[in-house]
Each structure stands twice: as C-alpha cells, then as structure tokens.
C-alpha cells in the first residue's frame, strides 16, 4: 500500500467530512466544538508547568526571608522588611513595609524605586479594589499614598492584592517576628522548589486524572458524531468499487478532518480563554495571560495525539464492522461478552494503588506514576466493564408496558452503542465521587484536629510590635462590634539564665482570662497555679516547686539574648483544672496572674487578645473594623478568625470547583448524547410515523426514548458509584484518613448524571414530536 494511496484516501475522507449540505456542516461543527473543548482543556493542562514555573519564579524572586541564622549587620546595602499582610473580606493582601538603610539598598522586583516613608506601590488589583466603594476600612490600614503600581514581575497573579510601603520606624521592631533585615531580594538558598505535600500532590493528580479522562473519552465519542450516516456513505463507496481497506481509510480521513478542525477550535478556545484569564481568579490563584504558554513538548503531544486518537478510535470502532456495498453489517461478536478480561483493568488499578496505602500519613511520598496509572486504570476500567454490565442487565429485563418493551428490546439489540454513550458520564461521575470523598475525608480530619470552638471567641489578635497589649485592648474595646476581650500572654522559664534544657510554659492573664483556660476555685491578683496538663516528669516537677528560684525567658546559646529575669515562684501554687473548651490548648506549665511575675520579665511576653464579637453587628464589617483598629495600634499584629471549619471552607471552594468541573464535563457529554440521540431518531423517522399511524400514543414513544437513555445511564451510574466508592475508599486509606462515605456528594453527582438524562430527553422531545408527525409517511 503506497503512501500516496493512503494520502489520497484520507484526503477523500476529509472532503466528505465537510460536504453533505447543512447536515454535513452541522456534524463537522459539532465534532469541531466537541473536540475543541477537549483540546482547550488539554492545552490548559499542557500550560500548567509553565504557570507553576512562572509563579514559582516570581515568588522566589521577591523572597524576603534570609533563612540565615547569623544576623546581618546594618550596612549601605541592607533593607529592613516588615510583613504586614492583612485580609480583606477573606482575601489575602500581601503587605511589606520597607526601610532602606543605605543608598545601595536592594529593590524588590516589580517596582522601579523604593517608596519613601508615606509612599506606597500597589498591585493593579489592589488599586482597583481601593477605587471601588466600601473599601475605606482597608484604605485606613494601608500606610501611605499610592505613588505607583507593582509590575507583573513583582506579582504572582493578575488578581493578587499586594503593596510595598516605605517606613522609617522598622529598625526598633527587628526581631519581633515578622521584621527582618536583608541584603537582597530573591531566593538566596537556591534549593529549588520544595517537594509538594504528598497529599496535596495526590489531590492535584486526581483532579487532573478525573477531569481529563472523561474529556478524552468525550473526544473519542465526538469524532464519531454522524456515524450512521457515515456508514451509509461508506456503503455507497463500496458499491461504486472501493475495497474495504479504502473505505476504512476514508472513514479515518473523515475522523482526521473532524479532529483537525477540533484542534483549530481548541487553539481558538484556548487563546480566547487566555485573554480572559487575567480577570479570572480560582481558589485565590490568578494568572497573567503570558503564563499560559503550553510547554512545546506537551502542546506537540496534544496536536499529534488528538488526530491520532481520532483515527485509531475510528479504525477500532470499525473493527467489527464489515462495510458491504449494500450497507454496513455489524458482525455480532463471538457470543456474549466475557467478564474476565474486562476485570483486568480495574484490578490492575487496585494493584497499583495498594502499595500506596498509608503513605500520606508521614509514611513517605506517593509514587505519582503508580497513583496516576492506578487511578486511570480503575477509571478506564469502567469503559470496559460497562458494556458487559449493560448487556447482562438488559438481557434480563422483560415485561412491562409497551414503552418499556420498545426501549429494552432496542437496548438488547445494541447494548454496545448504549454503553458507549454513557461511558464518559460513568467515568466522570466515578472520578468525581472518589475525589469528593477524599476531600470530605481530609476536611473532616482537619476539622477534628483544630479543636477551635468559634462559640468561645471569634477573633484572635496576635500582637507583635506592641510591648504591652494594653493599648490594643483599649482600642479594641472602643471598636464597634467588640463585646468583650480576653488577653493572654505567654513566656517560659528555665533553671538557669542560659540553658539548653527544656523550659516550662507560663501563661499570663488576669483572673478572668485564666478562668477562660481552667477551672480555678479562688483567684486573686498575684496568684499562680499549676495546670492540670503540666508535665509530670521529675525535672519539670522540680522546676515547678513553690518558692523555687527560676529564670524567666532564659537565653539559648547562640540565639538572641532573652530577658533572663530572675523569679522566685510564689510560696503557694494553686491547682487549675484545664477546661475542655480552653481558649488555648497545650497548657503544660503554670498559669500566672500578671503581678506575680517580675517586671523584668514583661518584655518577654507574647500576647494574644481574644475578641468576642457583638452578634448585633453584621459580619464581615465587624471583623474588618477590628483588623483596621488593630493595625493602627500594632502594624505587625496578626488577626485570625476562629473557625472550626476554616480549612473546610478552603477545601469547600475546591470541592465546589470540582463539582462545577465535573458538571461541565457531564454537560459536555450530555451534548454528545443529545447529538447521537437526535441522529438515531432521524434514522427512525419512517418507523416512528408508521407507529403513530396505527395509533401509538406520543406519550408511549416519548417514554420509550426516556427509558432508552435512562436504563444505560442508571446502570452506568450504578457502576460509577461502585467504582467511585472503591476508589474513594482506597484514596482515603492512602492518605490515612478515616474511611467514611460522603453521601451528599455521592448523591449530588449521581443527581447531576440523572439530570443529564432528563435534559437530553427533554431537548430531544421537539425533534421527536416533529418526527412523529405523519408527514414522515409521505414518500412522494
């Protein structure tokens, strides 16, 4: 077979793909759009490394931690940087105060000069935000006048909120946590990217596998739009003398044309999407359009793989088809479908996943290849199992009303076609169920470990720059929305001024504050108590002996010098029974009222103010008011919201996104289902009209169409639930998350699948009603 013959046949097929009147164009367009959507998603995936790399490079270039244990001395080329990140309506704002210490002070990326005190560079998104109404409280928090915008190189996303402000008051704050002196911006350690958290890596892999597998299956289905018509055309070609091989190659050419059109559409969709990309923000991640550069190798892979898949799928689907001059004959397979080899794929998948069990719980990294291929095998295994399942299940169905009988008999005759139609849906639902389960499991796990009870307090303010909490507390009490505050400070003591031994915790607060931590029978200013959670080893017990002399905030050799305050423990130490709902966990030492401590120990106290909100003031205004108040007093203070479900809202967003993605994939597959449904109906125009002629109710035929879609989908969803729950279970085992089934997400995914069936039936109704008009009987 010469290459020229091949080329000629393929070209002929290409011509057929676009000719054939309106119907031909519609089919080509549908194929193009279907494949195009898949290609766009694939290109996005191919651009993922570039997105991650660019973001990582930008992040590294602006890094302002020194990671060095030796202090840098002030010099001509040093700068003091304070982290003043804040949150505005649950969106992070990256804030940096800069105080250059000489003419050669380094410049962070994205700005062309260092802002003077009272000046500020902001990111474009922050500039937009500040221009919008209702942001006065945020404006109040930001120190200075906007004099410029931060360029793309200083940001990791188009929607990132960030600012650089000049300051002259940072040097005294050095060592207060988030203030540091550095001599350069950028990653000095150059250790490369940190390996991803194995669980996170698993989640990322899963999202891609779960969303891309149905897309791949969809692409495979999309190139087969118009299959029946194609069969007739091929038969006609055989009649005029083509041999079987030529007919096959022409069919392959048609599929090739559709997929190439799909590639063009896909690039179009991708470019259009990239233009929109800068205004899109997903899970607090936004990107600049030029991040979206597909890796050339991956893009080439997409460009080659999609047409190749189209051709292979076509040839594979014609495997059991004999194209005869007078029509296409489907040779029935050798008897019934066999189960054993169809089970191989899912079993192989499970086999690959088994060694990964328990790896997530600090047991090491997952092998990404084993995970990916394992999950892939399990999901793709569905497409092998489903035809068998449909054939078996449908073969047993019998009886029932006429509409049921019509549908069942049709399915019995062509169970393969029916199974193929729902393959994509089943795979998408199975993957989504597994992922939802995993997310729900990780969520539940996290929530349990936080132990934070938002009914006790709503906000926690960690003070940094302020030496005493008093000013902050006064300001907070005057702020709208604050009902009550509790102040707790913490420090520690050891046996010597300088020690390498373990130290004991001191929790400092007035009697009211201590009572938030523990049950105390009587408490007066000057009292001190031993926590019921205190360490009980001999050394610790000895340190906590009443009247014993100890050193508060001892120095650790080689580190910054501590307060080293000499303290004689009170002669009497009360006992404090720790509350189950204590504001602080891990109370392992003493609970002390402020006046019991020597004054010299004061500077060593790290204080937190817990704020109970006034429920009458609506959220999130109250929180924003408080953030603004706190930052005015202590620019470095950190305000965090107490939420037992804090993490779960973050995963919640991912889960919503996943749900939306899965629903979109399902809708896409639904569209292809609709197309093949309409095609089938058109083919049966004569039959439908004659059934109507002898008095068949339209309802009967409509119901039969519904059954015809619903039965395979129900079976598909059943299998999807089984595989999804199994995969979900395995994934939860892998991440060492307690096994549990998240029924709401299982049911919602199944519900979406069912909704697709209903929608497809409803949308095919107008065509069905039109076809059922008796005009179909006209032959003249």
């Amino acid at each position, binding site marked *: 077979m010469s290459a020229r013959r091949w080329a000629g046949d393929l070209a002929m097929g290409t011509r057929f793909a676009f000719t054939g009147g309106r119907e031909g164009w519609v089919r080509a367009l549908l194929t193009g759009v279907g494949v195009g959507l898949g290609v766009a998603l694939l290109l996005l995936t191919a651009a993922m490394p570039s997105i991650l790399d660019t973001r990582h490079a930008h992040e590294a270039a602006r890094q302002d931690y020194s990671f060095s244990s030796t202090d840098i001395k002030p010099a001509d080329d040093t700068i003091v940087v304070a982290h003043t990140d804040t949150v505005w309506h649950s969106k992070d704002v990256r804030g940096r105060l800069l105080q250059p210490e000489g003419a050669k002070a380094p410049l962070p990326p994205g700005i062309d000069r260092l802002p003077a005190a009272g000046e500020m560079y902001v990111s474009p998104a922050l500039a937009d935000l500040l221009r919008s109404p209702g942001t006065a409280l945020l404006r109040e928090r930001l120190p200075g006048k906007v004099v410029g915008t931060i360029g793309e190189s200083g940001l990791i996303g188009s929607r990132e909120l960030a600012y650089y402000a000049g300051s002259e008051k940072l040097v005294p704050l050095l060592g207060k946590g988030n203030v540091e002196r550095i001599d350069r911006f950028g990653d000095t350690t150059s250790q490369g990217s940190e390996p991803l958290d194995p669980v996170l890596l698993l989640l990322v892999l899963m999202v891609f596998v779960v969303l891309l597998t149905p897309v791949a299956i969809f692409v495979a289905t999309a190139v087969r739009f118009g299959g029946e018509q194609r069969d007739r055309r091929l038969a006609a070609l055989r009649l005029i003398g083509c041999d079987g091989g030529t007919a096959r190659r022409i069919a392959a050419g048609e599929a090739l044309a559709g997929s190439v059109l799909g590639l063009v559409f896909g690039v179009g969709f991708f470019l259009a999407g990239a233009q929109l990309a800068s205004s899109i923000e997903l899970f607090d991640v936004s990107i600049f359009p030029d991040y979206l550069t597909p890796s050339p190798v991956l893009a080439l892979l997409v460009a080659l793989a999609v047409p190749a898949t189209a051709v292979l799928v076509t040839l594979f689907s014609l495997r059991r088809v004999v194209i005869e001059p007078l029509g296409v004959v489907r040779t029935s397979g050798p008897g019934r479908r066999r189960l054993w080899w169809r089970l191989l794929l899912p079993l192989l998948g499970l086999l690959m996943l088994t060694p990964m069990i328990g790896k997530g719980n600090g047991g090491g990294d997952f092998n990404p290849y084993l995970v990916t291929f394992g999950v892939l095998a399990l999901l793709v295994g569905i497409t092998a199992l489903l035809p068998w399942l449909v054939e078996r299940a449908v073969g047993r169905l019998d009886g029932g009303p006429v509409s049921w009988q019509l549908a069942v*008999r049709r399915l019995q005759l062509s169970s393969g076609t029916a199974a193929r139609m729902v393959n994509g849906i089943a795979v998408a639902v199975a993957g989504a169920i597994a992922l939802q389960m995993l997310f729900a499991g990780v969520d539940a796990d996290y929530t349990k470990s936080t132990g934070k009870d938002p009914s006790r307090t709503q906000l926690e303010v960690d003070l940094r720059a302020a030496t005493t909490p008093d000013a902050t507390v006064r300001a907070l009490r005057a702020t709208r929305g604050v009902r009550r505050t509790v102040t707790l400070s913490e420090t520690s003591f050891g046996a010597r001024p300088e020690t390498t031994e373990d130290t004991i915790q001191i929790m400092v607060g007035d009697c009211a504050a201590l009572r938030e931590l523990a049950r105390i029978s009587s408490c007066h200013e000057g009292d001190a108590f031993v926590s019921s959670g205190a360490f009980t080893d001999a050394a610790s017990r000895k340190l906590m002996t009443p009247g014993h002399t100890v050193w508060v905030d001892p120095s650790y050799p080689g580190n910054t010098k501590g307060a080293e305050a000499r303290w004689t423990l009170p002669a009497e130490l009360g006992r404090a029974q720790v509350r189950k709902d204590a504001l602080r966990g891990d109370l392992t030492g003493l609970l002390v009222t402020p006046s019991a401590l020597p004054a010299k120990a004061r500077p060593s106290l790290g204080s937190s103010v817990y704020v109970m909100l006034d429920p009458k003031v609506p959220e999130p205004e109250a929180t924003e008011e408080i953030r603004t108040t706190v930052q005015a007093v202590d620019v470095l203070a950190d305000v965090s919201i107490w939420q037992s479900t804090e993490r779960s809202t973050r995963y919640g967003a991912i889960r919503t996104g996943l749900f939306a993605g899965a629903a979109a994939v399902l809708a896409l597959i639904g569209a292809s289902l609709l197309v093949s449904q309409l095609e089938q109906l058109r083919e049966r125009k*004569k039959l439908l009209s004659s059934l109507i002629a002898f008095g068949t109710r339209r309802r009967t035929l409509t119901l039969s169409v519904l059954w015809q879609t619903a039965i395979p989908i129900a079976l598909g969803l059943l299998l999807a639930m089984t595989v999804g729950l199994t995969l979900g279970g395995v994934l939860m085992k892998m991440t060492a998350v307690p096994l549990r089934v998240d029924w709401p997400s299982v049911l919602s995914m199944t519900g979406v699948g069912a909704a697709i069936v209903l929608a497809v039936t409803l949308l095919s109704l107008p065509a069905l009603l039109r076809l059922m008009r008796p005009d179909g009987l006209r*032959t003249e």
Partner: protein
Amino acid sequence: MNAPAAPAGSLLTAEDLRKAYGPTVALDGAGFSIHPGEVVAVMGPSGSGKSTLLHCLAGIVPPDSGSIRYAGREMATMNDAERSSLRRSEFGFVFQFGQLVPELTCVENVALPLRLNGTSRKEAEKTALGWMQRLEVDDLAKKRPGEVSGGQGQRVAVARSLVTGPRVLFADEPTGALDSLNGERVMELLTDAARSTNAAVVLVTHEARVAAYSDREIVVRDGRSRDMERAV
C-alpha cells in the same frame, strides 16, 4: 368529479377533500366512500394524491377542508387523541416499508396494537400468534424482522393490521416491495382475512393485478377522485 353524497350504509365517507403541502396541492376536491366488507382500490399515477387520500381517510393527516365521516361521526370534530384511539381500535394499517419495529420479535410486533390498547402481554401475544397462523408465518414468531424475508415481513405486517379486528384496513402499496408470487399470496391472505371479518379494505396501489383483488376502484388524478362504478 366529486363522489356523490354518502350512499346509505356507507362506513367511511369523504367529500370534497382538499389538502396542500405548502405549494403542492395533494388533494383538490376528492371524495370517497366504502361499505363494510368492501375492498376498494385507490388507483392513480404516482404523485396523484392517493397516499394523501388514504392518510386523510385514516385520520392520520387532517385535510385542509372537506368532510370525512366514519360510522356517522365527523372526523374533523375529533381531537388528535380521539383519532389516535380510533386508529388503534377501529383501523388497521399495512404499509410498503418501515413498519415493523426492528428490535421487537415478529410476534411482539403483531401484538403491539393490542398492547397499545391495554391488552395484557400474554393475551396479546396469544391472539397475535393466532393471526400469524392464519397468515402462515407462525414459525417466525421469535425471529426479528431483520431475519425474515420481505414477503414474510409483509405477512407479519398484515397479521398486525388485523390483530385488533379492525373495521377498516388501510393498505398503502402493501405488495410494492414484493415479487409477483409473494405479492399475490399477501393479497389473497389479506382479502380473505378481511372478508372473513367483514372489514372494509382501502387498498392504495398502482398495480392492476393487485387492484384486481378489489370489488371496485377509485381513480385519483391531479388530486381529484373518480368513482368508476358510479361513473359508468
């Protein structure tokens, strides 16, 4: 050229039927009448409107104007559901092509009209098998239409058209796709069965040898009908 007013004892009568599909006039004042037990051939060149006449008479397609009376009832006053029910219970149909549901077995196909009328499946298939016996195709009961020959399929279709005991049987080129021998056998079985149940048969055909199985013929030309018996 219109048929005269409905003669006494007529089961199905049409007067002055007009029907156009867009700009194409299919019927232009056609008339028709048939008695119980009568076989009437509707003849005429292709495109003359014979199939449209049949579709109108059977209540499949409503005419633009004119009157069709079946057993004393004016069809124009019936709604679609009533006409469908009429077709299910009183009429039977045989077409040239595309009438057997390919995925149902032959006996299920024959039983279909009964089941549409609410007969239980077992009973419907029993009756269906009886009719298949009369049409000499009972051995095909479990086969699907794709597995039987054209003549056999057409006999199955005839069995299906008769299974409800219709009072009027509409046959549109019932032998159109068959060879002479099969065609004649189908016609013999069809007319014998119809006569034995006193059903009227409206037989649309352009073949004289098929029309020769009728009692009289009506000729349709350019949308107008001519009743040859009354005209001579």
